[in-house]
């Protein structure tokens, strides 16, 4: 019982972390139709920014803010300097560019910050609660994680569904040329999309790092599960990303605890395949489009 509860709870928190990462992917997908493989190393860099700030004896929250802001700037800079030139070319070019970025940022971080483990603080407690006899594997930081991801999701939904800006971002993503003809500043929309995505990405980085260890590859496992979560959800839907993250986090937690941790990735594949076979466009996809 206790184990069941705790496996569930840790899975939930983990799922939220995947969800955060998936949200960042969804944002870039929605705004530029690109899968950003460099999401993880970008987040990693901003976590190091936070660490540097915190090491300089500023509070956690100063570091936190610095990381988010540097994410914003980094995202915008990468879009303008690296992605912009391949705009209008086949999408695979941009995807491969992000893979290149992945490699480059990794190497640069290892050179800049060294490739040793470093401890990263958490702003809230990392000890679980005790309710009577029952240990509840939910920490202050875990609650913060869940809360912040839900808030980000709601903000994104509001942005895309409810605002003119969101509408213009979507238009730019779906059909650049037409958007441009209609007067949408496509370039700005892309930059904004990347900046926001990188901001959400660095949030996911901070959530993964909190109270744990960081090194240049610490985000790598999030790449796979975050991407799988986003695809599960349907790539276009922020709610889908969060649901995908939760489904994945909880089920993988159970597989790991009750079946075997070596099968975690296989289970992820299994879940993904089952979902995609039933709904080829993910859980929250729209109805199949008219083809002819």
């Amino acid at each position: 019982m206790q184990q069941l509860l705790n496996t569930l709870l840790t899975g939930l928190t983990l799922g939220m972390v995947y969800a955060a990462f998936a949200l960042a992917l969804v944002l870039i997908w929605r705004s530029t139709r690109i899968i950003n493989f460099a999401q993880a190393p970008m987040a990693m860099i901003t976590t190091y920014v936070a660490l540097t700030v915190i090491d300089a004896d500023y509070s956690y929250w100063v570091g936190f803010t610095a990381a988010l802001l540097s994410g914003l700037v980094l995202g915008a800079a990468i879009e303008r300097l690296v992605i912009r030139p391949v705009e209008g070319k086949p999408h695979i070019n941009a995807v491969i560019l992000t893979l290149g970025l992945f490699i480059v940022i990794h190497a640069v971080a290892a050179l800049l910050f060294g490739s040793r483990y470093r401890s990263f603080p958490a702003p809230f407690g990392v000890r679980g609660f005790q309710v009577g006899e029952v240990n509840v594997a939910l920490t202050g930081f875990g609650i913060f994680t869940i809360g912040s991801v839900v808030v980000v999701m709601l903000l994104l939904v509001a942005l895309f569904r409810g605002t003119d800006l969101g509408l213009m971002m979507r238009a730019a993503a779906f059909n650049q040329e037409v958007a441009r003809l209609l007067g949408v500043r496509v370039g700005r929309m892309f930059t904004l999309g990347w900046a926001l995505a990188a901001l959400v990405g660095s949030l996911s980085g901070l959530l993964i790092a909190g109270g744990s260890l960081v090194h240049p590859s610490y985000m790598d496992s999030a790449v796979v599960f975050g991407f799988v979560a986003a695809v599960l959800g349907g790539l276009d839907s922020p709610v889908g990303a969060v649901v995908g993250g939760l489904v994945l986090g909880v089920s993988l937690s159970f597989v790991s605890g009750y079946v075997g941790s070596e099968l975690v990735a296989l289970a992820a594949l299994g879940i993904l395949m089952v979902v995609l076979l039933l709904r080829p466009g993910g859980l929250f996809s729209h109805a199949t489009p008219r083809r002819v």
Partner: protein
Amino acid sequence: MLEVHDLTTSYGAVRALSEVSFAAPSGQVTAVLGANGAGKTTLLRTISGLVRPRSGRVLLDDRDLTRTPTEQMAALGLSHVPEGRGVITELTVEENLRLGGLGAGRFRPADLDRVFALFPVLADRRRATAHVLSGGERQMLVIGRALMADPRVLLLDEPSLGLAPRVVAQIFALLRGLVTAEGLTVVLVEQNARSALSIADHGVVLNLGRLVVRAKASVLAADEQLRHAYLGF
């Protein structure tokens, strides 16, 4: 008044426009005619900045637009209804329409109603994703969307494509109305030269990227030799 001077545009080695010059006077309809591949679409795309000319200039009321980015055109009052593929199929009908206003920096809900009154089919489908629309319905959506921007200059690339004759007549009547009532400037590209000339004030004829004739619409329609040579009727 929209003017182009000595416009030359190439796609790689293919020259699609050669030193084309003409003016589309304000408050009038100028029809751009010519066979397939004559360069009509290229002309409109060059005017709205989607392709950059090799040389030449585009002027709107004496303001040089040659280097103006496409995305600023809408705000300057220039609307371009592209040839086909103009609907953003992933957005809903209403979102497509809203964008028409937003991009130009002037979205008014009243305009929405105006378009819906004009094309009642669209009103029924306002929340539907545009990909469910039929070909003609999409074309209506694109035209309606251009109207949302309340433009001063409207570039129309084959607006009748895929539309039922009744709707074509309706749209042409509407255009005529806007031109006379609000002083709209229209540059109309049409394959169907006869119907285009029936509402146009002026006509220019392109052939292999060169401007070969520029005349009053009535003159063009009457000149049998010209019609046979370039317009095929």
